[in-house]
């Protein structure tokens, strides 16, 4: 990784602000997904929240961008653009070591993770080796979205990268842990979805989001840990197989 000072000079001139809607602007910082982005995206998130204060309606950070929805009764479009540039000039990255590390116990099993064999076969691994590989990395939380508390995490090892299912499932159980391309994530609640499902966790994501306190925040790290069916059940985990759900 390059020293941070060098990156700062390189990045701070690179903020692009695009019109997204009548009262929303897209702040574009990067063109590719990289774990080192997060130090800048989080810093920009804080700087914009401070600069806009009560003029901010919503701010949604993602992998390379922040979508800023401002109050157009207080600011014009051009005033908002100016305020963004002012807030982000001389931005310094936050210390991403400060992000929390979450330990997520997962029961990896074909009954609740029907794509285990598919992902393993594509990677040329046994199922045990696949599980070991998926657990063998601290994943960065890039963004929250799609559903309350849903964290987009990555990047999974290139060998495990698997495209989304051709036809999404109508119902993916809450707690399902899946892979799509080089991303990995946990479904917070029962929802449709096309990710390759490897297992299930009993860690609540939705209840946290419902209280406004998501378990994950962008910049956090997540480590999956394989547990047995007994441990999963003892923890109150729902062992109903994926395909048998009503």
């Amino acid at each position, binding site marked *: 990784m390059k020293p941070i000072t060098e990156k700062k000079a390189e990045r701070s001139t690179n903020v692009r602000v695009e019109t997204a*809607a009548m009262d929303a602007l897209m702040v574009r910082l990067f063109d590719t997904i990289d774990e080192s982005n997060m130090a800048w995206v989080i810093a920009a998130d804080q700087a914009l929240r401070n600069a806009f204060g009560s003029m901010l309606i919503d701010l949604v950070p993602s992998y390379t*961008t922040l979508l800023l929805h401002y109050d157009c009764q207080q600011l014009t479009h051009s005033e908002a653009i100016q305020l963004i540039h002012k807030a982000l000039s001389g931005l310094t990255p936050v210390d991403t070591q400060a992000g929390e590390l979450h330990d997520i116990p997962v029961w990896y099993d074909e009954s609740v993770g029907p794509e285990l064999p598919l992902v393993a076969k594509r990677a040329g691994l046994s199922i045990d080796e696949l599980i070991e590989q998926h657990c063998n990395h601290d994943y960065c939380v890039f963004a929250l979205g799609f559903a309350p508390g849903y964290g987009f995490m990555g990047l999974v090892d290139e060998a495990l990268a698997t495209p989304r299912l051709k036809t999404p499932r109508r119902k993916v159980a809450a707690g399902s842990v899946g892979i799509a391309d080089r991303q990995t994530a946990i479904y917070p609640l029962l929802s449709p979805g096309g990710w390759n499902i490897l297992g299930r966790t009993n860690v609540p994501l939705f209840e946290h989001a419902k209280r406004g306190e998501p378990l994950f925040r962008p910049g956090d790290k997540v480590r999956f840990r394989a547990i047995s069916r007994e441990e999963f059940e003892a923890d109150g985990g729902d062992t109903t197989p994926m395909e048998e759900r009503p």
Partner: protein
Amino acid sequence: MSQAAMNETQKGLVVKQAGPLALIQDVGRFGVGHLGVTQGGAADWISFRWANWLLGNALNSAALEIVMGGGLSFETEREVRLALSGADLDVQLDGKPLAPNTSFKLLPGQRLEFRQPRQGLRAYLAFPGGLNAPEVLGSRACTVREQLGGLDEDGKPLKVGDRLTWKGAAPAVRRIPEDQGPQMPASGCRLPIVLGSQIASFSGRALFQAFNQPWTVDNRADRMGVRLTGPALHGSLTGIISEGIPLGAVQVPPDGQPIVLMNDRQTIGGYPRLGALTPIACAALAQCLPGTEVWLTPVSASQAQEDYRKQLMVWKK
């Protein structure tokens, strides 16, 4: 609880028959997009506000959004003045027709029924002081997919036996001036769109087609998104790195058929976009029945803001 044991304020409007979709809504849930929580809120926010205005309510008071009607009916347990705005869903009070965009009195035992759309798609029913419902993350908006909001905080639409109660007592009796009030879109409805995002990635031909021919509202339309059908639009991008999605975003998936993302949209997504409909256009689109022809009409952000402020001024008089 027996009716005799109830005191007056516990009495309310009881659901006798559930229609296809009746949801408690306010203006929506803001400041929580970074949690992955959708905005929600009344899809036709203009009619929603008129309904509250008719009773002299705060304009963000929780009201009912009723889609299609479909036989949804209520019986009241106590006298109340309610207001109705938005679509004409052939509403009847004890079998007698009620005009949309008016307030009316309901006496104990009387029955209110929402039948079928005659003009528009979504009606709003406002209650004195607003409906009683728990606030979740700063809003009473009911979002089904996220299981948030509504009477029991589980995002469920109204069902038979639900009892609606309200916060206020004697409401104002107001009439909407003749030249104002909600307009239900006719065919050929213009939808102002603020261009932006990945507009340059679309071919010249695609841009010409986008803005110079009518689009048809598809039956794949709900509170999350409305699909428009017409000639396929193509550009140099098929997908992009997932990024935040504003209200009204017109995204174009690989099949070239645009989808307008509405109140219950997912917070981030990865299809290229032409731009975003203005909030006023979103309100109009929310009233378009499948088959309606609509035109995308580019407008500048500053013009859109001026139109928006003008709309807000109407309720301040």
